[in-house]
């Protein structure tokens, strides 16, 4: 087999020889970038931004596209193969599963060589979010412009119609749900209102149901309290939160099909005038409002702050971080790449973090995608009233703007798109303390990681299964203590010890 390979390789090399001889002179270095690609956010060769980056930086960029819906599989295969592109963009947690693969960046990011990166990563507060267990920086993150990413929102017109007061606590909210269910605000004479409904989000179907538990002072999985790492799923407060969620589910206040409700079905619940309240990315306030555009209904979608839990906590913990480590944008540089490639990759990143690069990746090309009016960036008609009928965001993404390489987001971009209502509620979340402390993405040592692989993956499956069963009542909540005991038995303490060690390292 090897012999055959060698012969084949030889033939190939010989046949390419004349070609490479001519190309050898002054060929710019080629780097390959692997990242998530899908129809409404393409990451492919030939995108406008990528062509411009090639031109401006004098490097050759080749994109390896991985379909978003099988990203985890593609990443697993990529890493199993060991043939790694120059740059890989993926979630921090998964990048750090293979620490050896990524070039340590501590010595490479400094004031002289990469001044733009240094402006962000020179800050130790930011730096520790991208550091590995050994203190070395292993990837470049995406710098976000805003914090409030996900929000609650509801139909204010229904509250008004039924003369309901704005609910303050979870119990108030429960009563409002009941009133909505029984009060027939859509006026069709049927009891078909679904007070709270969410869209399936990624692989975790109940993701948008769980933020309620944050108001009990916990998170769904790991969170820190007084410097101590705790596990939310088996916390006694989780039992109380689940009792509330189960009550809502059993009384048909929570969408009974939340496990399989995909986006289109969820939208149709809205258009059928069935849904009162939901939780999602802030842009969905506008998306849902747009569903009713053109109809003469008096639908009024308004953002809402989280309901207070029993101890008065009103916050959500799953918000955007200054560096989004949980999304697919983090970029590691392969340690085995050639010195020229590594240099080119750093040059690229530094450019992406510069003012010029930021403008290209957030706004595009002046006169084409945006114009500057009175010192303000304004998107052109090509974007805002796209001739192909694309939404502004989709239109931008067809050029590669606001896409996989937008590593430095600009607040002006964020504000330019959304309605006043979204900006209003986002400011309230950020300024009035509705954003809870998020648990950092931790970097583990190899020993800690192997404890987590062996114990936590099994615990995770079990917990995922049981939480849904508790909410749906398939498993009665009397079984909660037995559930917690089982998780203990599966080695929770060892896992917590690993997390604690990593957390202490992070906080130091």
């Amino acid at each position, binding site marked *: 087999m090897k012999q055959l*390979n060698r012969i084949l390789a030889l033939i190939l090399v010989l046949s390419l020889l004349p070609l490479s001889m001519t190309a050898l002179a002054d060929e710019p270095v080629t780097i390959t970038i692997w990242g998530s690609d899908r129809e409404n956010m393409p990451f492919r060769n030939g995108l406008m931004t990528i062509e411009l980056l090639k031109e401006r930086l004098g490097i050759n960029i080749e994109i390896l596209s991985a*379909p978003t*819906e099988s990203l985890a599989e593609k990443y697993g295969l990529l890493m199993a*193969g060991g043939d790694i592109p120059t740059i890989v963009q993926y979630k921090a947690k998964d990048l750090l599963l293979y620490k050896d693969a990524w070039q340590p960046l501590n010595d490479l990011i400094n004031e002289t060589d990469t001044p733009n990166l240094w402006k962000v990563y020179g800050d130790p507060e930011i730096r520790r979010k991208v550091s590995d267990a050994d203190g070395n920086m292993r990837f470049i993150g995406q710098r976000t412009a805003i914090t409030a990413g996900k929000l609650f929102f509801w139909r204010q017109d229904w509250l008004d119609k039924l003369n309901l007061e704005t609910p303050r606590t979870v119990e108030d909210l429960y009563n409002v749900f009941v009133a909505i269910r029984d009060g027939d605000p859509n006026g069709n004479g049927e009891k078909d209102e679904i007070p709270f409904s969410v869209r399936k989000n990624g692989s975790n179907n109940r993701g948008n149901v769980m933020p309620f538990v944050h108001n009990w002072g916990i998170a769904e999985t790991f969170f820190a309290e007084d410097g101590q790492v705790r596990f939310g799923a088996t916390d006694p407060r989780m039992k109380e939160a689940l009792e509330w969620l189960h009550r809502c589910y059993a009384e048909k206040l929570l969408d009974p099909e939340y496990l399989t409700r995909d986006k289109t079905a969820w939208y149709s619940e809205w258009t*059928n005038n069935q849904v009162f309240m939901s939780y999602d*990315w802030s*842009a969905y306030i506008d*998306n849902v409002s747009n569903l009713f555009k053109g109809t003469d209904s008096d639908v009024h979608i308004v953002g809402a702050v989280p309901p207070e839990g029993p101890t008065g906590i009103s916050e959500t913990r799953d918000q955007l971080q200054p560096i989004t480590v949980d999304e697919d944008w983090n970029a590691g540089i392969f340690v085995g790449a050639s010195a020229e490639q590594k240099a080119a990759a750093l040059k690229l990143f530094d450019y992406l973090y510069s003012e010029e690069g930021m403008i290209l990746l957030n706004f595009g090309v002046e006169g084409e995608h945006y114009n500057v009016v009175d010192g303000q960036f304004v998107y052109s008609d090509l974007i805002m009233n796209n001739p192909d009928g694309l*939404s502004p965001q989709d239109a931008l993404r067809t050029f590669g703007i606001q896409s996989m390489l937008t590593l430095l987001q600009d607040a002006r971009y964020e504000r330019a798109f959304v309605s006043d209502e979204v900006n209003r509620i986002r400011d309230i979340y950020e300024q009035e303390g509705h954003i809870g402390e998020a648990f950092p993405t931790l970097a583990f040592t190899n020993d800690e990681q192997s404890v987590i692989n062996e114990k936590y993956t099994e615990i995770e499956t079990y917990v995922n299964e049981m939480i849904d069963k508790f909410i749906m009542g398939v498993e009665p909540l009397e079984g909660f203590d037995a559930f917690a005991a089982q998780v203990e038995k599966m080695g929770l303490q060892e896992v917590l010890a690993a997390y604690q060690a990593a957390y202490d390292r992070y906080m130091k």
Partner: protein
Amino acid sequence: MSVTEAAVRRSNRIRVSRGRKLFLAFNTAVLLLLCAAMLYPVLFVLAASFSEETAILKGEVTLLPVRVHIRAYEKVFHYPLLWKSYANTLLYTGLGTAINLVLTVFGAWSLSQKKMVGRRFLTLMCTFTMFFNGGMIPTFLVVKELKLLNTLWAILLPGAVSTYNMILMRTFFMAIPQSLVEAAELDGCNDFGVLFRIVLPLSLASLMTIGMFYAVAHWNSYFSAVLYLNRPELYPLQIILRQVVLMNEIVENASSTENVMAEGIKYATIVVAMLPMLCVYPFVQRYFVKGVMVGSVKE
């Protein structure tokens, strides 16, 4: 005409009992019911693809389209990657099936010939891989080592022979009278001559059937593309279909008009993706029953 049919016809002249009539009525009824159950979901998809979005989601569509329109199809036909992936799938199916057939015929014929010493061992060697395999990751590593990633060969070669299909064909070949082979050999044909001049013309049914087996597998396969391809211009149709049918984005902001269309687009894509196969197989169908035989691999 099947053998039973012939026998029954002859017996009909003798007597048609009441029990027999009853049975036939029952038989027809069961088959009609079964056919309805088989057809319904496909007809539903067809109807939904022409129906208005809200009608689909409210469950108004049962068998016939509601508020007919073809906007979903217009949208699908404007999907740039669709045509490219369609062409890719045609290529993978055509070329892939050709490779499959050549290798399978060669393998099946040589293993069916008694004069090949060691064929029993070789047959078992092939059969063994039906039940024992290296698994996904080791196979991936081999394909990677052969430098096939991101080429069309990664799609075509790893599944180039299906052992099951080769055994089916081998059983078929073994039923060909040895005398024909010997006569051809006396006429000076070597084994290739025998295979191409005598055997294959007699094996149309088997070739068509096994070819159809392979073609369906190629048409519906997506997993090898997930495993081995990183270039959208090489994606087969099923990858696009999955994106449309299963997509759950993480961050998004699609326009409202598109959102409202999504369900219809889903069904239109499904129709577009399954239509070619559904159009082809009825023409090949008459060979199916004659083309497959399974038996022991010991001889």
